[in-house]
């Protein structure tokens, strides 16, 4: 008994500390442990791009993807967003072909078209060899990718060379490669002397000079049919980052700040109301154990919120829904235990014995039920898209916490106050519903 009392006081203390942590970190606007809100709650824009890897060798895909990520990150930073998030995702397995995606989250940005325009201006730069391919009887020119792309570019500068016609000055773009790019460029030029090397900007061939000799040093010059202004813009965009592979906008979404803040306050109100109604129901029906369940539930919530803050889990509307449902699941574990305890009490056991047996009898059902829910949650997380994952993560955490809450909290609290021998009042307090549980009743033969 003393052992359980000490544990009960100890767990209560932890509960208070957790609640204080949740409250104080939220009150302090500079705390690193404030709730991280998803775009649907905080407002913002999410853009999902598909990286077109059809021209990229399998071994280079992940390299190209991370290069792409770095460049888009630079572009996003130029756009001036606080805490942007650029993620890559490789979707596969289910659709048969792998697909590389780039997910760009821009919190606070609500002008979706401006965001798309700012990111979309980034040009792609590719070098392709022109070879003659004979299909059936006709010979066609074909472009063969060389693997040299904008990814290897270190800098682009504007220059003016003398044009074909004497006296005219033609703008030209001077490309400087990084060391890997320089080696690749030298290799390509040395192996293909006499062939044409086409330079593609945004999938358009700009110029296709003939390779005269191997070019060491990593510098190439593009002379095309552009005006000085066009050339200047191209240089600027290339310096912001030429993309190693083309990207296509697949989906986009933006949530304005009003809808988001309405969703937050609605979620908080729903959570509080839900908690209060469930507590009232539990106390009215289960009396003393109901009070303990409400207490355990409050501690369960403090624990969940603290975990969400510390990990941190980004809260979305679906995540809040997951949290509220997990509260229902946590109650179920308590209901199972209390019903079992009550049965044992009816069977003539002393209150303390009844609590002990009630817990051990309820255990297999709690274990199997929680495990199947955790398994479904994990599968959801594994297969899901971001909105499904937001739900699944909170749901799995909630079910895990419910395990702990039922077994550790409710049990310890009950055993800390239920006496060894108790009659009358204790039977009433541990009873439930509108019937007296003080005397043995045969199990209901019908309802």
């Amino acid at each position, binding site marked *: 008994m003393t052992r359980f009392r000490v544990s009960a006081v100890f767990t209560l203390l932890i509960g208070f500390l957790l609640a204080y942590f949740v409250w104080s970190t939220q009150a302090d606007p500079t705390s690193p442990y404030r709730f991280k809100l998803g775009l649907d709650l905080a407002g913002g824009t999410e853009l999902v791009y598909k990286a077109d890897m059809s021209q990229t060798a399998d071994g280079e895909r992940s390299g190209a993807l991370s290069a792409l990520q770095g460049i888009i990150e630079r572009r996003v930073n130029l756009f001036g967003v606080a805490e942007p998030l650029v993620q890559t995702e490789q979707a596969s397995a289910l659709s048969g072909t792998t697909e590389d995606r780039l997910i760009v989250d821009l919190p606070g940005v609500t002008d979706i078209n401006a965001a798309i325009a700012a990111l979309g201006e980034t040009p792609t730069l590719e070098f392709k060899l022109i070879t003659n391919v004979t299909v059936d009887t006709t010979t066609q020119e074909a472009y063969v990718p060389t693997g040299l792309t904008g990814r290897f570019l270190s800098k682009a500068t504007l220059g003016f060379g003398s044009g074909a016609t004497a006296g005219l000055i033609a703008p030209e773009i001077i490309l400087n490669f990084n060391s890997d790019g320089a080696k690749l460029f030298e290799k390509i030029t040395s192996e293909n002397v006499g062939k044409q090397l086409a330079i593609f900007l945004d999938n358009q061939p700009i110029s296709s000079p003939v390779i005269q000799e191997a070019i060491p040093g990593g510098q190439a010059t593009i002379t095309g049919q552009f005006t000085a202004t066009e050339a200047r813009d191209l240089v600027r965009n290339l310096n912001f980052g030429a993309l190693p592979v083309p990207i296509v906008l*697949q989906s986009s979404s933006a949530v304005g700040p009003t809808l988001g803040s309405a969703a937050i306050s609605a979620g908080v109100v729903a959570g509080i109301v839900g908690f209060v109604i469930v507590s009232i129901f539990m106390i009215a029906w289960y009396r003393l154990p109901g009070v303990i369940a409400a207490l355990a539930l409050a501690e369960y919530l403090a624990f969940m919120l603290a975990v969400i803050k510390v990990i941190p889990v980004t809260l979305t509307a679906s995540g809040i829904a997951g949290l509220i449902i997990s509260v229902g699941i946590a109650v*179920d574990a308590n209901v199972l235990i209390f*019903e079992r305890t009550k049965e044992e009490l009816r069977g003539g056991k002393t209150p303390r014995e009844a609590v002990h047996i009630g817990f051990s009898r309820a255990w297999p*059902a709690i274990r*199997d039920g929680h495990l199947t829910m955790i398994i479904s949650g994990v*599968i959801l997380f594994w297969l899901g898209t971001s909105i499904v994952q937001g739900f699944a993560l909170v749901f799995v955490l909630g079910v895990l916490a419910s395990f702990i809450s039922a077994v550790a909290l409710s049990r310890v609290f009950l055993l800390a106050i239920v006496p060894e021998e108790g009659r009358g009042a204790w039977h009433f307090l541990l009873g439930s519903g509108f019937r007296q549980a003080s005397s043995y009743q045969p199990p209901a033969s019908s309802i």
Partner: protein
Amino acid sequence: MYIIQHRKFFFWLTGLILAAAIGAILVFGLPLGIDFTGGSLMQVEYPNGRPALADIQKQTELVPVGAVSVRAFGENAISIRTRTMNPAEHEAMLIAVSGNENTIELAYTSVGPALGSQFTNKALWAIFAVILVIVLYIAFAFRKVSRPVPSWGYGLTVVAMLAIDLIVPAGFYAGYAHYTGAEVDSLFIVALLALLGYCVNDVIVIFDRIREHLNKNEKEGIRESFEDTIGKSISETMTRSINTALTVALALLALIYFGAEATRNFALVMLVGVVAGTFSSITRSAPLLIPLANWFKK
């Protein structure tokens, strides 16, 4: 005992509800949202009051994007669904529906058609995978119970149940969507998957009681008909089943009345599923084991 004695009645009742649900799905259909089909969805608020929907509809026709559906969204806002729009079309649409009014774009979502079909695939796989794993887990958890129904029989019964547990809320949603213009979005799939977890838990509690009684009877040499064991198990777990459903339903009602617009349909589907699921696990899960047991006796 009541339920066991009248199990024929409950089977028929279930059949009737199931027929109604399937009928609703067939007649009304489940309107797939842009998460599945691809397309654009925008919510626009008119702070000074919403013009007539027909007028807004007319305005949208200025932008050549094919069929446009305009619906009310909350008090002062509308929800517009089109095929996937490009940024220029999106901007044009916003200007078109604004007209002379002040507007605020609350939210805009655009999903490419390719991404949409991938999501459908993923959702189907997720449901299939969850069901498969649940059967395997139950077959494992009940491995020591083999008479009169082998442990995988419990798994199969659960699957039969789950199929029905998903069809009933889906049928409800088909009817609901028909009258309110709601669509099947990814949260609907989340709701179905969460229901899978909830209903399995519900059935497991009853099966756990059967497992306990069968083990006890065997140990103590008590002879009892399988029907009596099941009837006893259902009666004993009934209060728990109803109370749990009640608490979850209370939490969901709070979510429906006070929660965000975005999760309202989700909570509604969950609520119907929880009520239907509890009813079906009480009246059908265990009673279904009886014909199965008779079949194995032969």
